[in-house]
């Protein structure tokens, strides 16, 4: 089975989010009243696996290995069949 997977990687709570801070400030200057702005990354991909569970497991491994830095980031994974 072919899956479209999506990993959303965001800075952990309490970890300084330099991008979020800067974006919030600029949005404020542009007249947008927002708070708690956080900026993360989203990685989408196609992969093959026997089933959804196996696919999710694979993507999780990729997050651990490369896509996310567990010390400062958390990630969540979502999948849909292609």
């Amino acid at each position: 089975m072919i899956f479209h997977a999506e990993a959303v990687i965001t800075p952990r709570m309490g970890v300084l989010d330099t991008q979020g801070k800067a974006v919030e400030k600029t949005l404020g200057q542009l007249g947008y009243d927002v708070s708690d702005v956080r900026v993360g990354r989203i990685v989408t991909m196609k992969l093959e696996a026997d089933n959804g569970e196996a696919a999710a497991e694979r993507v999780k491994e990729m997050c651990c290995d490369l896509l996310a830095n567990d010390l400062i980031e958390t990630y969540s994974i979502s999948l849909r069949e292609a």
Partner: protein
Amino acid sequence: MGFREVGLSESEYKRITELLGREPNALELELVGVMWSEHCSYKSTRPLLRTYPSKGRYVLQGQGENAGVVDMGEGWGFAFKVESHNHPSAVAPFQGAATGVGGIIRDIIAMGARPSVSMDGLFFGDANLCKTRNLAKGIVEGIGAYGNAVGVPVVGGKTFYSPAYNDNPLVNAFSAGFVRLDKMASSQTAKPGDCAVLLGSKTGRDGIAGASFASRELDEDARASKPQIQIGDPFEEKLLIECCLELLDKNMIASMQDMGAAGILSSSSEIAHKSGCGIDIFVEKIPLREADMLSWEIFLSESQERMLLIVEKEKLAPVFATAKHYGLDCAAVGEMTEGKRYRVYRNGALEADLPTSILGSAPELSWPAEEPKDMPERRAIDLSTLASEDPAKELTTMLSCPNGRRKDAIWEQYDSMVQLHTIAGPGEPAAVVEVPKTRRACVLTMEAEPYKCWTDPYCGAAETMALALRGLWLTGADTLGMTNCLNFASPEQPDKFYELKECVRGLADSCRALDCPVVSGNVSLYNETASGRIYPTPLVVAAGLVIDREKITRSGRTKDGDYIYTVGK
């Protein structure tokens, strides 16, 4: 909370109760524990560092300040220092290396200088390992991302590969800056009645107790202890540089100190202690990123991009205005006092009350030293492995091994030209930069000879020093002074402490013999893991002065028919 949890020994704890005349409370114990950690107190190495020659005709500021300063002439001083960020870089390569660059740059700002040049000493494991490649990639990108954004050129460095660094890469960051002598800042000039002002980022939970982290061997737990990772924000740092320099230029700052290890605690206690006064800090006035932080967390937090300024009361308003111009947080959080007490108040309650002297007076430790038993084996080189019957082949093998190869792939990731004053950058045997608005030039060399120090600590260290100075002299420069970073394993084992002691002796003797004062430095111990230890790695950066930059001898300017000479024995 017991004394062991904060990293103190029983005798140290006893000493604290003697000095206080009572038992410390929990917060006080935390504070003293960190300040007495190896990382903050240099308790194992202070006796050794005292043996360095510190005087020289160019030295304006020797050890004891945030960075050493030498006299460049025509009213210019040159502040420089090298510092390690080994443990953080091993755990989080990108952020660890980036914040290492940020930290050393703030040391230079604290002297009142504009950070003008950087160099980096990198010691990586076996170049063929995937692990090494990943670590190296993260570290190099981290150094680049921070330094490039802040706009401080990397003008040179040192990269060394050996399996000895497989689990324990070393990242030594050097930074330097030019300062007008009449604008030099100091951490020793606060007066009672002055305000303590925090400038820069808010204080968060990052890097809490990083100092004690750096005073331990790296274990698997290091990965689990998450809040020790600090995140760097070079954008904030760039604003901090511009803001501090503008304030210094307008004579708005009485004294200043960067916030490195043990953040607010070490910066405020050092400034009070060195200035001979006391300080009251009001915790509720400290801008926080997370509201629910405990006092000890606030004091030990190593949130990056913060400076402690001491400001006369009547100058507070313009200081706040300048901070606002640059979009930086700024808060008056305390006051310098007459009595030499370090006092912490939170919402009116006195939470800690210590003599300022206690924080800076960790008892020195003298470890036993003993020559390693395997020294003869270390020295035994197996010459039979040299295929000397085919010198051409041997030469190409040498040139293509990771240590012999060109390092372009690393230094092309660093901006080496920003600030428009690099005369000779990375890839050249010595880095050369202009002294601002003069015909003078400053020459820098960075050297380390870990393998030689492993086989012969005394001679290896002396050779490192000689190599660094030879690089300077070849350009025609006069020696100004040197800074050094001592990267070693645990001092607690006699054979390892021997290496440290002998290397320092080698550096001290060669500096004396070659007339090169030591103006600043940094020590990183416990560079070992269960599976191995690093080579003894003293890294040296030497600085020299050329009066007329047009007269510099440059390498690579040869023509056909030129003669080749060797000089020396």
